[in-house]
């Protein structure tokens, strides 16, 4: 683009230079045609360039390319600014040139000049004619007059009469015979021209103007009128008084003709004026001749300059428009990108003007914006991760967390809350609408209000007993409340039922230990005293007294024994020795214990089904023996009232899906009345029993031992298959206790103790 601009400018410059060079040797005139075509060529190229760029711009506008409208507008403005003054100046100049050239040519001036020329011409003509006439007259007078005067004197007188410069007698061939006056520069006057001679011979007299070839010399006096007249009868004329000359003259003039020649100067003033008029007239006519050429030259020059200037202006307009629009386009493009959300680095121009500065500022701004957004995103993601973190913690808390809004509705609750309350959807409910919580809702609300009124502590804490399901176990909840901002309330609660149960167990074992200790101490003296009484008094008594003593002592001793056993059981429960775990064969242990129940086995009340493939387990043989004993005894107790009571003792081996041995189970089943629902929940707490006799410590001890062995104990009632689908409480067909030992003896341990299955 700039190249074309340069071309245009140089073309215009060349043109202007050529105009400036017109002072020289007519360079412009000579090469006018070449220049014209050169400029026309440049103009054509410019037109082509402008048309092409204009089309391109229009195409871009039509296609909606970004920034093309701005460019078009700018180019249009610049073009208008450039073209309008040019066209205006051109129009004015065109008119001006036309008018001024026309004004040079005036009909009246032309006719005046013509008239002046005619005047001069006729003046000269009349002078010529006059001289011719006077010469003719003088010649006639000379021929007629018999003047006695010598010829030379007569010529001199004639010269004075005619006020001529030279008067001469000329022979027939034009030679000067006798002259009076004449040019100072030459001795003899010039000969008349042959043309003049011939005219004079033909018509008697002739005259002509001479010396007008050079204007300057003419004014200095060279211009003259030469008149020649034939002297009639010139042959007889004697020229000089002397005969010799006459003869000579006669001899010389063979034709015999004599002419009178008169040369008269033209007055310098007349001549000068006439010449001035002639010069002016010819200049005027020349100019008239040049008129078309001049007009063509001026107007052609003007038009070409206009065309070049306009095109150069258009090109400049496009270029300037481009330059001006560029920062704006960069800026607008950047704004569009930012509006789309693209905050990447923006282009900036390095020029020093304000628009380029604007692009730089915009780039800086965008960068800062991008940084700010990055920071915001970072903090949002941090917040998000913190929230997720918190949520994970909340979800994995066993404690229930419930947040209430200001109006009392639950805005959020964690999984712990749902699982404790057995309510999957808590959100949106108020506390008194949650099933099972109606009882404590009022209290909790009161506690919140009380706490908010106190303003001292940051939370309140309380324990509630809840009956979630009718007939179910009561739930013990430890509830803690705190207020959150915006009048929201936080309630955190824990299911401490197990804790309470454990506390109860601990308390019982303590009580049992102390009681056993306190009770056991006096038992031995009591027994010894009773036996001593029998020993001392038995011999002294007789008959009924003796038997009564024996019975009474026997009763005392028996009861003391029973009490001792009871106390020992208490002691065992409270202070079981820590288990010494060694590999052992559960089947062998079961068989050993069952030898004690040979009677029941013989009666068919007790059967054993032992799994021969059972793995060896790790355990304390004496404690496990007690467990088996307790469980078998419990089962037999449960079925003792029914004649067809039956207890089955099984060992089972369970395998993992991969086929590896996982655990060994000991299952004791009876067909007695089963466990009461209440016992099932708290069977392992001391003194919970369905039996008419017994301490109620059996299952508690079993539980304790099982815990020590890492074994899982399950109590369940067996139900008849026919009643499986019936509503209400299905009929119980028996009870089952299962113990599963997952601590199996490893191969090494097994190898060590295979020889002795039962230690201790």
């Amino acid at each position, binding site marked *: 683009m700039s190249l074309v601009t340069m071309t245009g400018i140089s073309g215009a410059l060349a043109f202007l230079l050529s105009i400036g060079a*017109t002072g020289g040797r*007519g360079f412009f*005139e*000579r090469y*006018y*045609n070449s220049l014209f075509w050169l400029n026309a060529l440049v103009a054509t190229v410019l037109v082509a360039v402008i048309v092409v760029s204009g089309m391109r711009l229009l195409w871009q506008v039509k296609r909606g390319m970004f920034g093309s409208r701005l460019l078009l507008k700018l180019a249009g403005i610049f073009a208008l600014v450039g073209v309008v003054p040019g066209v205006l100046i051109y129009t004015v100049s065109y008119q001006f040139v036309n008018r001024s050239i026309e004004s040079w040519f005036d009909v009246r001036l032309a006719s005046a000049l013509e008239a002046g*020329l005619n005047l*001069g*011409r006729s003046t*000269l003509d009349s002078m010529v004619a006059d001289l011719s006439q006077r010469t003719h007259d003088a010649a006639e007078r000379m021929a007629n007059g018999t003047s006695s005067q010598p010829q030379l004197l007569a010529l001199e007188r004639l010269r004075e009469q005619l006020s001529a410069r030279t008067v001469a007698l000329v022979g027939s061939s034009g030679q000067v015979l006798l002259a009076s006056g004449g040019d100072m520069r030459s001795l003899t006057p010039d000969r008349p021209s042959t043309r003049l001679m011939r005219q004079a011979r033909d018509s008697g007299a002739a005259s002509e*103007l001479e010396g*007008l*070839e*050079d204007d300057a010399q003419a004014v200095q006096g060279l211009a003259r009128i030469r008149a020649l007249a034939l002297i009639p009868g010139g042959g007889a004329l004697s020229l000089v008084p002397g005969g010799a000359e006459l003869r000579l003259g006669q001899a010389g003039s063979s034709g015999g003709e004599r002419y009178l020649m008169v040369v008269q100067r033209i007055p310098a003033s007349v001549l000068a004026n*006439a*010449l001035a*008029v*002639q010069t002016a*007239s*010819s*200049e005027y*006519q*020349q100019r*008239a*001749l*040049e008129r078309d*050429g*001049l007009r*063509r*030259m001026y107007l052609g020059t003007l038009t070409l300059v206009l065309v070049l200037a306009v095109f150069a202006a258009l090109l400049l307009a496009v270029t300037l428009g481009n330059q001006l629009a560029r920062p704006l386009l960069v800026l607008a493009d950047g704004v569009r990108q930012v509006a789309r959300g693209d905050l990447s680095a923006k282009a900036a121009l390095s020029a020093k003007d304000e628009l380029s500065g604007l692009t730089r500022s915009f780039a800086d701004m965008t960068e800062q914006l991008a940084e700010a957004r990055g920071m915001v995103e970072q903090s949002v993601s941090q917040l998000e991760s913190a929230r997720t973190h918190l949520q994970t913690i909340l979800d994995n808390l066993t404690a229930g967390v419930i947040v209430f809004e200001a109006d009392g509705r639950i805005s959020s609750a964690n999984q712990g809350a749902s699982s404790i309350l057995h309510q999957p959807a808590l959100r949106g409910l108020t506390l008194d609408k949650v099933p099972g919580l109606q009882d404590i809702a009022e209290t909790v609300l009161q506690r919140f209000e009380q706490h908010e009124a106190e303003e001292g502590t940051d939370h309140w804490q309380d324990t509630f007993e809840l009956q979630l399901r009718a007939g179910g176990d009561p739930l013990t909840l430890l509830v803690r409340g705190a207020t959150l901002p915006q009048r929201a309330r936080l309630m955190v609660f824990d299911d401490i039922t197990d804790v309470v149960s454990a506390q109860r167990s601990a308390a019982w074992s303590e009580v049992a230990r102390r009681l056993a200790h306190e009770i056991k101490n006096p038992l031995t003296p009591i027994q010894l005293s009773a036996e001593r009484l029998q020993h001392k008094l038995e011999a002294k008594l007789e008959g009924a007294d003796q038997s009564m003593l024996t019975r009474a002592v026997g009763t005392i001793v028996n009861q003391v024994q029973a009490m001792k056993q009871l106390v020992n059981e208490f002691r065992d429960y409270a202070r079981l020795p820590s288990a010494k775990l060694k590999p052992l064969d559960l089947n062998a242990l079961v068989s050993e214990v069952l030898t004690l129940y040979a009677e029941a086995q013989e009666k068919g009340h007790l059967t054993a089904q032992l799994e021969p493939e059972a793995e060896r387990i790790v355990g304390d043989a004496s404690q496990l023996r007690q467990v088996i004993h307790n469980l078998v005894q419990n089962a037999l107790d449960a079925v003792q009232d029914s004649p067809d009571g039956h207890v089955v003792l099984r060992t089972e081996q369970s395998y993992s899906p991969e086929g590896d041995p996982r655990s060994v189970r000991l299952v004791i089943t009876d067909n007695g009345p089963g466990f009461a629902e209440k016992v099932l929940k708290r069977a392992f707490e001391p003194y919970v029993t369905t039996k008419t006799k017994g301490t109620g410590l059996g299952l508690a001890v079993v539980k304790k031992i099982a815990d020590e062995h890492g074994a899982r104990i399950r109590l369940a009632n067996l139900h008849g298959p026919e009643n499986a689908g019936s509503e209400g409480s299905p009929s119980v067909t028996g009870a089952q206790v299962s113990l599963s030992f997952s601590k199996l003896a490893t191969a090494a341990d097994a190898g060590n103790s295979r020889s002795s299955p039962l230690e201790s």
Partner: protein
Amino acid sequence: MACVLGLLMALIPLALAEGVELQQLSTQRSEDGLSLSYSAKFELPPSADDALLKGVPIYFVVETTVLRNRWYWRDARVARASRSWRLAWQPLTRQYKVSSGGLNQSYATLTEALASIRDIAGWRIAELREIEDSGSYYLEFAFRLDTSQLPRPMQIGLGAPQGWGLSIERSLPLNPDFSIKP
């Protein structure tokens, strides 16, 4: 050499004539040098006639150049001569004035005035010493109406279409005795 000359001659346009007919052209070598005589026949173009009557002086130029053929370089220009005439109309005296050099002559009619331009006899165009070198010479002769001395505005767009073209150019080989080859 002749071959080269012939080639050269073939390349040089023999005659460019526009409104002028050359009736006679001859050269003669004398003791003074080379002299040329010619006689041209032409009529003044109407537009030139018109301009003449409006007071515009018209110039005629005759130029001769004697060149020596050189096969190895541009032909050497050995002599050059030119003569110009100024023909003007004097409305005051109704005479045509012909100026050539310092000489002025007036003529009552255009024919007379042109006659003085048409013919030249014995115009010395080269000194004897200039044509002493041996070799073949040729003569370039040009006669034309000189438009470059017209008033400038009139020169714009002057050319044949405007009826101002009046010229003749000849290139003529010279014999060893410097007469024009037939």
